[in-house]
């Protein structure tokens, strides 16, 4: 083998070795790489019990309730299968809206409610002009996040 080919082989083998090592490492840390836990997993009890964590999903339309004269509010978050009640006290970001993505940081209380201490809005990858969005909304009934479409099989569990 020529020296050049040897060098090529060495670089190639190192690259393959690193790729395999990275794949295994990332697989092992899969849960830690997740920024938030999905609602169905929370409902099934797959969430960290002893520490704070984040949940992510869509704000269910028509569930945002603000308490008069205080910063307290509550709403439901869904992954379009299950919905979880969330309570929060504080200022929410600009993009926090019904039917839009949200990430909340906090912990579960005993009664199946997520008590958030920080609310972040998650933007989706769609960019539209306001007029376009209006005309779409006129013709298509938004079904992504309304209460009627949610499954009733989900129930909060602490197990």
């Amino acid at each position, binding site marked *: 083998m020529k020296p050049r080919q040897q060098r090529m082989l060495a670089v190639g083998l190192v690259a393959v070795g690193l790729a395999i090592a990275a794949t295994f490492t990332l697989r092992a840390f899969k849960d830690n790489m997740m920024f938030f836990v999905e609602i169905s997993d929370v409902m099934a009890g797959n969430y960290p019990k002893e520490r704070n964590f*984040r949940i992510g999903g869509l704000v269910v339309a028509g569930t945002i309730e603000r308490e008069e004269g205080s910063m307290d509010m509550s709403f439901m978050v869904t992954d379009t299968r299950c919905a979880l009640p969330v309570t929060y006290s504080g200022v929410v970001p600009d993009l926090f809206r019904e039917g839009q993505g949200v990430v909340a940081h906090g912990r579960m209380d005993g009664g199946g409610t997520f008590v958030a201490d920080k609310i972040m809005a998650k933007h989706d990858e769609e960019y539209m002009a306001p007029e376009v969005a209006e005309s779409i909304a006129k013709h298509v009934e938004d079904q992504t996040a309304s209460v009627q479409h949610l499954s009733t099989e989900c129930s909060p569990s602490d197990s």
Partner: protein
Amino acid sequence: MWKWFHQLASPPHFYRIAPTFSLVLLLPGLALIAYGVYAGLFLAPMDYQQGDAFRIIYIHVPSAYLSLMAYMIMAVAGGIGLIWRMKLAHAVAASAAPLGAWFTFLALATGSIWGRPMWGTWWEWADPRMMSELILLFFYFGYMALRGAIDDTAKADKASAVLALVGVINVIIVHYSVTWWSSLHQGQTIMAKEGPAMDPGMLYPLLANIFGFTLLFGSLILRRTRTEVLFRERRTRWVKEMILAPEGQR
């Protein structure tokens, strides 16, 4: 073809032709950026959710794209330098690092400024997209520090090329972080599976800026590499002859 390639890779030849190529990339690049910035800020419609705040993507997306692109150029050039012992390739890799680091910084800074009002947070330590992009910045810093720490140019070239190749894994992670894991950062828009999920009036200025930034980057890297070549070849005969030659013949 190979003859042309070898000629291009010869330092004196590259030194002579680089300004011309640099200009050829610079002029259309600036024209595209001028169109992209004007159309992006004034002609493109507002976003239905974000209003005018979305316009930061006209800087953020090209910067983020080039932060990855510059790294790949640095790593591939380093690899070519390792395998084929090509001097010019190492000079290209060395010139790409500071440019890439600046684009990474721009992507992080504009993302953070946008994130405060939109997401409700400047920075999230646990987010895979943000963390991998920050690690990318550290790879650039490490690469430049490693180069600076080794006095022997040939040894510095080799060591930094290996580091650059290792960091390619992180580039792949940055790119796929929003697909593989849940993230606060939104998913792919332009390269979405069903085609770009963006109003054409917003998309064209963005594409113009992406291509414009790329051409500008190409132009800058040619100029930087030219300077790097001059420094590396400072003890060779062609540099001495060129410097001693009368003004018009350089």
